[in-house]
């Protein structure tokens, strides 16, 4: 393993990435089964970013995330059953079914309120950094958002304030653009005139890094450096993690275009095929990590299969828990407008 990450760390990350993948596949199935209403967003294809960054955060750190939050919440350690129950609008959900898929969070694990207003989460995350600095506990605020969030004006205000006040904020821009990479020209997106999202942060003097967001080793190395910078009091850091969008996220509503992930594609037992073979071969972060582990360890195939079986079981249990949970009583709709 040439990357700066030992197998001891890589295996637990694969475990978390698999858990997220199986969770998201279950969410898609539950939506198609009409077990919940409303639009939703899956983290498939971006698991490496959330898992690597979260593995480096400390309990005291704050987290702001966005509509595409399922992976962040699970990576931080929330209970998959309560997360799934929230998506299904059940009383035992993380927020009693009041927030739903767009707003999963877990304040005991450091989450601020999860905003589905894409630029909004960036600005709330800066507030998290403000509180971290005021409390002087060496904590930082990690903000996850997509490339689209930078379209909204408040994101510029937030970046500027974080930089002016040298707040300990780690901006993690998950660029899940469909665009292809042009060497030396950044990673264009469909929604920005700029082809270099880091240049937006650079324009307000924020240190920036760009990594391949499907490479968990690269994300881990960059985030490790970024977090150290943040904690040193030098102000915010902007980390752009670039992923090739999972094809199932391209339609208006997610579709299971690549089917349930077949981990045998990582161990050579089964070759990726069909129109999405390129994504499965090169851009799926879960398969990529599993392939790397398999290439260094003859016994990896069995271990991968075993981790996958455990993840499937945990998610099956989570779905069972969520489906068995009661809906909240209608009269509770009028409570807790105020603390």
């Amino acid at each position, binding site marked *: 393993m040439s990357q700066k990450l030992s197998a001891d760390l890589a295996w637990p990350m694969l475990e978390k990435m698999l858990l997220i993948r199986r969770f998201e596949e279950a969410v898609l199935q539950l939506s198609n089964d009409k077990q919940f209403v409303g639009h939703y967003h899956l983290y498939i294809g971006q698991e490496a970013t959330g898992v690597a960054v979260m593995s480096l955060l400390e309990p005291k750190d*704050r987290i*702001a995330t966005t509509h595409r939050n399922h992976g962040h919440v699970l990576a931080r350690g929330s209970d998959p059953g309560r997360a799934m129950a929230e998506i299904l609008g059940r009383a035992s959900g993380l*927020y*009693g079914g*009041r*927030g739903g898929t767009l*707003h999963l*969070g877990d*304040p005991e694990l450091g989450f*601020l*309120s999860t*905003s589905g*207003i894409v630029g*909004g989460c960036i*600005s*709330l*995350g*800066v*507030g*998290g*950094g*403000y*509180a*971290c600095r*005021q*409390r002087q506990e060496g904590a930082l*605020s990690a903000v996850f958002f997509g490339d689209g969030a930078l379209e909204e*004006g*408040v994101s510029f*205000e*937030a970046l*500027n*304030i974080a930089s*002016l*006040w040298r707040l300990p904020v780690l901006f993690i821009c998950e660029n899940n653009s469909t665009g292809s990479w042009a060497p030396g020209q950044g990673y264009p997106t469909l929604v920005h005139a700029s082809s270099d999202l880091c240049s937006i942060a650079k324009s307000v003097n924020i240190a920036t890094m760009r990594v391949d967001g499907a490479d968990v080793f690269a994300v881990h190395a960059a985030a490790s450096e970024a977090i150290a910078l943040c904690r040193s009091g030098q102000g915010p850091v902007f980390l752009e993690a670039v992923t090739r969008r999972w094809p199932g996220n391209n339609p208006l509503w997610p579709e299971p275009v690549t089917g349930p992930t077949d981990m045998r594609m990582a161990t050579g037992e089964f070759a990726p095929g069909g129109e999405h073979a390129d994504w499965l071969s090169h851009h799926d972060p879960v398969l990529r990590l599993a392939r790397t582990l398999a290439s260094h360890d003859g016994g990896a195939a069995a271990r991968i299969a075993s981790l996958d079986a455990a993840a499937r079981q945990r998610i099956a249990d989570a779905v069972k828990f969520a489906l068995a949970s009661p809906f909240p009583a209608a009269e509770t709709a009028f*409570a*807790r*407008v*105020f*603390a």
Partner: protein
Amino acid sequence: MPRQSYAEALVDALYDSLAADPRVSLIGSYVLGLGPQRHLMERVRKAFHDRIADPPTAEAGAAATGIGAAMAGVRPFVDLGTGSFPYLAWSQIVNEAAISCYMSDGRIPVPVTFHLLHGVRGGGAAQHSHSPQSMLCNAPGLEIVAPATAADVYGLVRAAFQSPNPTVVVSHAKLLGIESDVPAQKQSIPIGQAEIKRSGRDVTIVANSFMTQLSLAAAAALAEEGIEAEVVDLRSLAPLDETTILNSVARTGRLVVVDECPLRCGIAAEIAAVVAEHGFGLLQAPVVRVTRAQVPVPYSPPLEAAVTPDAAKIAAAAKRTLGARA
């Protein structure tokens, strides 16, 4: 009884809140605007410079910084400046701060305090004369206070800092220099309680913020004509103290509602609706509203005066409820 200006009491409240709780900080410290009282804040800036930061011209960013920080457990005060600037932070106030507690099933309260200088301040024209509080009343989850006196602004600002909820304090620009009685030991005042500022048997005048001062002036003028008006100062717009309003109308049978927000869907409309719904049988005459006209605020002084409530308009409205010709 000692007297203080509204501005002095507001500054005292900020000073005492900063002194009482290390979690308190100010994002924006020009709470007194550009008027002659602005130097009063120097005392606060000097004593607490490490907990005061003036943001760039970034209303949404500043508001969100306060909101996110409050979610993370500290107690920021965000000065939004003139009452028209909150519109730039609307998403943050109504779609982040107001909803977080509810949407998280009570797990993420947002103890942030916002302050803005509202109202027709004189020469502000359409863009710097706003009173956005009636729109904010449409956002469940916000506490909104609109004090009219030195004692009340002190007490309600202290209460805002102590509250676990997002609280918007609106101060009318014309109140800053107005002096009123304050107790020797100023106290926190519970949010959500109206106060009868003047008792009277003939007609109830419900007001808030600077309109309370104008209503008291109107009541004094009416008294010279033998009409005793009761002035109910709401102090808090959300939650609304319906009981004090209805009890007063039960005594007088007549109601004038005064508010500087525009007429349509305004605070006066809401209070008229509350009384129509819960106190229709108490009324001996139709309710009369005195509000800003449903037009943008013009710049030229006679035009500005034409669209804005004043004591004479309030007194005339009170007489109308008594059947006298205005």
